[in-house]
């Protein structure tokens, strides 16, 4: 009967994070990635001749300092207007009403739901009613879903909501609610936004996170796109699938080096892995991180000269396809081929060092770090502190210490 698209978290014109440039970096390929993804979204809507498009919040990444972003959005919406495709959107925590201080009016085929109370919009040509409410400010903590109206009988009811549901470890909690809250509304489809990882939570009713349309950092790996939904005459969903729209695909792979004992074998393994990934992602750019694991004789060499190995990986990527791979970072989680605890037995000194390493916690900050932190831009400092929480600093320091002792002459 009709088809519609549910997308969310466009974060238009926000940059991709964590990609250090090098001479051969495919800079042009990542330029305007979120814009290209939005263009892909509109292309899909036109190709599938959808009845309407839903945007479940975080269209913008924050207050618009650059109106070019809104102008670009409007141009894309005008393409949909030319084919009579209406767009229904809500504001999320990133583009809440209080955050977006100056607004460029969108074309009249785009409807933004109220941020004060839930609203319902019924399509003039189809028995479809969409219920939704946007964020008035960036810190909405109340359960918005509870106040959504009941379903309209004889209509296909859709709930449009920006929420973290009951809470997510990777995302801040906003407009919290439970699955039961959503289920009892009697809607056919809940189009959710905020969580960037696409997820089908429930099929009765359909509760879906479409995820963001373009991954923006290394923990947003895999396909990114929108949810394409087909509804039959009985107002039942006959098909729902995620359609990729991303132009840069993030991948984070772990390579086990247990069987790898020399540098040429490691080189070959990395090359082969990158090649496989390149085939999997198709015509888009691959932004990849490799984490090396396992017990290997190369443990010391890798830790001793991480920057050289990082450059080596970048070089392999460039050789394979300089236009289609951006090697994000090389991380080490290897362990030495020998057992450090065995070493501890051999003499007091090693035992002392190893015992101290076991006790080591990054609490007492080295004085030299203060000077660096004073110079770091605030976002870098924040990111560094976040990394400190997730990073296994003790393991890294232990590896560096053991290797430096072993190789000093």
């Amino acid at each position: 009967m009709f088809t519609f698209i549910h997308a969310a978290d466009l974060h238009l014109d926000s940059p991709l994070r964590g990609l250090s440039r090098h001479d051969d970096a495919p800079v042009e390929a990542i330029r305007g990635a979120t814009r290209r993804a939005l263009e892909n979204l509109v292309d899909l809507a036109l190709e599938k001749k959808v009845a309407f498009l839903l945007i479940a919040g975080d269209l913008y990444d924050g207050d618009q300092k650059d109106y070019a972003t809104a102008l670009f959005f409007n141009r894309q919406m005008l393409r949909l207007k030319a084919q009579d495709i209406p767009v229904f959107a809500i504001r999320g925590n990133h583009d809440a009403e209080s955050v977006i201080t100056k607004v460029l009016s969108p074309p009249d085929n785009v409807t933004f739901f109220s941020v004060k109370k839930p609203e319902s919009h019924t399509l003039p040509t189809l028995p479809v009613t969409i219920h939704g409410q946007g964020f008035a400010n960036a810190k909405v903590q109340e359960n918005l879903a509870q106040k959504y109206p009941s379903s309209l009988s004889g209509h296909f009811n859709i709930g449009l909501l920006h929420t973290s549901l009951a809470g997510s470890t990777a995302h801040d909690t906003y407009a919290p609610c439970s699955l039961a809250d959503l289920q009892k509304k009697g809607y056919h489809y809940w189009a959710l936004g905020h969580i960037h990882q696409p997820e089908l939570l429930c099929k009765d009713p359909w509760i879906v996170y479409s995820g963001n349309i373009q991954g923006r950092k290394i923990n947003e790996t895999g396909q990114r796109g929108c949810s394409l939904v087909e509804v039959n005459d009985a107002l039942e969903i006959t098909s729902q699938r995620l359609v990729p729209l991303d132009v840069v695909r993030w991948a984070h792979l772990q390579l086990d080096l247990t069987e790898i004992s020399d540098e040429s074998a490691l080189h070959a393994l990395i090359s082969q892995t990158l090649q496989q990934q390149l085939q999997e992602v198709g015509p888009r750019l691959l932004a990849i991180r490799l984490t090396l694991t396992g017990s290997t004789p190369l443990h010391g060499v890798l830790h001793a000269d991480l920057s050289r190995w990082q450059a080596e990986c970048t070089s392999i990527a460039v050789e394979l396809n300089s236009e289609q791979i951006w090697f994000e970072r090389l991380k080490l989680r290897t362990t030495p081929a020998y057992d450090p605890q065995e070493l501890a037995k051999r003499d007091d000194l090693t035992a002392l060092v190893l015992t101290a390493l076991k006790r080591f916690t990054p609490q007492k900050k080295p004085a030299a770090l203060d000077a660096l932190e004073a110079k770091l831009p605030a976002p870098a400092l924040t990111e560094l502190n976040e990394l400190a929480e997730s990073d296994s600093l003790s393991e890294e320091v232990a590896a560096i210490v053991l290797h430096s002792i072993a190789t000093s002459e």
Partner: protein
Amino acid sequence: MRLDSLSIPAFGPFSDFSLDFPKSKYDVHLIYGANEAGKSSLLRAIHHLFFGIPRSTPDNFLHPNSQLLIGASISEGKETLNFFRKKGLRNTLLDSAKNSLPESSLTAFLGSVNEEFFQNMFGLTTHSLRAGTAKLLSGEGDLGTAIFSVALGGSPIDDAIKKLETEAELLFKARAKKSIIPLAIKAHKEAEKASREQSTSVTAWKNLQSDIKEARAALAEANERHRARHTRSLYIENCLAALPLLSTIHELEKQLAAIQAPSLPSDFPKRVRAHQSQAAANSQAFQLATSQIKNAEKSLAQLPDFSPLLAATTEFETLKRKADQQLENLEALPHLQASLADIDLAQLHPVRSADLTLMTEAADSLHELTQQKASLTRKLENLKIELKAQHAALTEAHDLGELEEQCRLADEFAAEKASLSNLEKKLLTLRSQRDKLSARLGVHGDPSTLQIPGTRAIQSAAREQEALHTEHHEIKARLRETRDALADEQSALAHLASQAPIYSQADLSQSRAERDALWAKILSSQQIAPTLTEAISHADQVADTLRDHSEHIAQAAGHQAKISQLEGKLTRLHDDLKSAKKALEKWENSWRPQSRELSPIALLEWREDWEKLCTLITEEETLNLEITQLHQKEITLLAELGGKEFTTQHRSLKLALNRAHQEQGERNLIQKQVSKNEVKQQQLSQEATALEKDLSTAQATWDQACARCKISPELPPKAAVEALHERARAHERALDLKSRQTAVDDYQALVKSLAQRFAVDPSEPALSAYYNQAKIDQGRAKTLETQLAQLKDSLPKIQLAHEADLATFQTLAEQAGTEDFEPIIRQHEKRSSLLTRLEDQKTALQNLAGLTPLTEFLENLEQEEATALAEEKLTLDQSQENLQQERDHAKAQLDEHLRRQAELQKNTDLAAAQKQASADALAAVVADAQRFRQLQYAIDFLKQQVDDYRQKTQGPMLEKTSSFFKALTSGAFARVAAQLDEKDQPQLIAIRAGGEPVSTSGLSEGTADQLYLALRLAAISLHLENHPPIPLILDDLLMTFDDKRTQALIPVLQELSQQTQILIFSHHAHLEELIGKSVLTQRL
């Protein structure tokens, strides 16, 4: 663990080699071996015994890898283990019966010691001693790092820290702007700034919208003003143009009123002219028709009667049609008659086409079969001749077996003999080389009997000689340096002495003592000693000098101390030089008997040539033997084959064999051809029989055909067929003659008949001309009759038209009021012209009035004044330029704003792209900062460990080191101690026996060696206090020690041997003498 014995079945140069290390009071063992005796191989064997033989080993030159085997007996308290180690990937540990043994059996003795630790901690070499000493002498004697480093087995921890610090500083260093992180931060900030600058700000956008609105309004206003001026200006222009038109209209109206003629329809002149033209045409047509009727009637009357001719039309047409045939027949008749003149037509027998075909086929068949028979007969005869020749060519075959065997033997030997000349050439070359080499080496007789030292022995001697020379030269250089330094110090001291006496504290004490003694004497004797004044004065002088020149004296004291130190050093260097000379002489004495008066390097080259000579002689002997064997074989073979010379005989045999093979081949070929020809002969005979039968049948058919056609069978078939054809052709010509004669007669009869009927000359041309003219006249009569009828039909119509013309004339005259139309028409046309002009003027006025109705325009026009209008127009024209500029300006403003708006609306992502660049730079900052943080934590951690370890081990370490150091320096130094430097960092210092402190950098090289050795031995001793013993191996460690120091080391080693077994490897023969019976000696 101690090593009780070594048993090496196969490894390096050893085969079934064994060494025992019996227990005694002191567990110190000297393993002596001259160079190349296998000392290094033995050291490697001990390592591999415990930790496995590596995949790639240099010790497989005598025994293959698979046979390499090292064995030992080790013990730990009461536990013992006898085992072997073989080479391989797994299960390389074997028990005494060579069965596989688990590694854990050995690990129980080794504990947690791995190969690296065994090498570093329990292996002391000259190299490691030198490196450690160099560190101490360079002044980097930080106590913590020194203790830490020796505890690691000599790896300096400060190097590790420095390496990490260097990497960290590359990333970030306070106040260094060009390190990696600050540069990335700068790139991040620049990109952020660029992003802000390239943003389309909200305010700018809104201002632009407002500007566009204002610009649109301004343009609309300017347009309005411009339009109003233009309208007024246009009105004035129109008024000025309309005023002359108005006066013209008035004038035209006056002229119209003056015309008197009645008003006529506008087409009146046209109707008059049409009537006049029509009437004239009608009158002319009537006259022409009447005249044409008369002429036609006259011509018709003059034409003849055509009915007789029409009755004879068929005959005339036949005559005309057959005229050409008549001519052809007349021409052919004489030729036909002539060709048949000699033939009797009555006797000519008719020929049927079937007979002709029968005769032709029978003749062809007979001819073909006759030809085939002749060909077959020729072939048979040829074949008989060929067979006869081939039978004659077949001769009896020869036996080839013997000839082939002889050839095979000759070929085999020829192949061997081919190499003979090469062998002989090679032999000559070898002899020449051997002679040259023998002459160069001065060797006569068999060189292999000479006793020449091995390459490794010579190389070792060369290294030893070089080391001794180097040492000798180094001591000499140090001696020179020390002498120079001593001279400098003495010169400085003399300079200081020349400025003031150089008193010491002792001088002052002595002076004061003398003065005090005298003073006591005075007090006791109440007599003033004559020397008192002098003594007091001297003491004061000394005190004053000491006070006034304290710095000067302190410097002098420094110089004196240095001089004393340098003098000591000089003495030691002299001793060292003597030792070095002695060592060199000793080496030369030991070298001379085996050296052939050559240096080791020269002997190495000589040895290479000698080896080459031995090889040459062996090769020469082998060659000689080969050549002799070949000659003997040739003689035997010639006896068997016959002949005097092998090459000639070999060639003859080859030719004979070739020829025999060729003949055999030819005979085989002929035999095959004979068989083939005999079969062919049989086939041809059969064909000839069949052909004969066909020929007789064909002859019978021919005879029958000749009888049927009445042709003589005697004629040859071809001639008979031709005669029959000729007969058929004569018959056809006779028939043709008859037919043509009949046609000629008929035609002539017709000509004659027609000529009589129409009285025309009796010839075909005359008759044809008469007939043609009659036909033309007949056609002309028909045309005239048609014309006449048409003319008669047209006459009534012409009459009616004339009557209509008269009626029209009457009507026109009534309208004009006169029959004279011309004056009336002229007046009518003038009026029309005036009216047209008047209408044009009014149209022009209406154009000027535009949309305004003409009456309203004329009313307005009546009120306007031309002069005033012209003046106003001038003013308006003058204001036009300003208004145009105003409008252009407003338009340009709007265009500019719209252009900016279009630019902003374009697909611009410059700001976003810069934001991306900023994020990229930030990523680099974070990655590098993360590494920097890890490095800083590692550096701090290591420094903390060094400090902790120092604090923990400083006491026992210094105590143990002091004990060893005192013993090693034979009491010259009392101990070592820790002293804080200017940075409050503890530094290692040595304390002389007299209590004088000396920093590590101030120690002599020899003493620094002893200090470093004391530190290492102390670290080992302390380690052994808490860990099971592992044999300590000293590899040529004593090479840098003089005899005195070596002797001082022995008690230290004896003391340490109470904790673990000590193995001393050395190639110095005199070491055994030096350390005497205090250690057990093993010789390799």
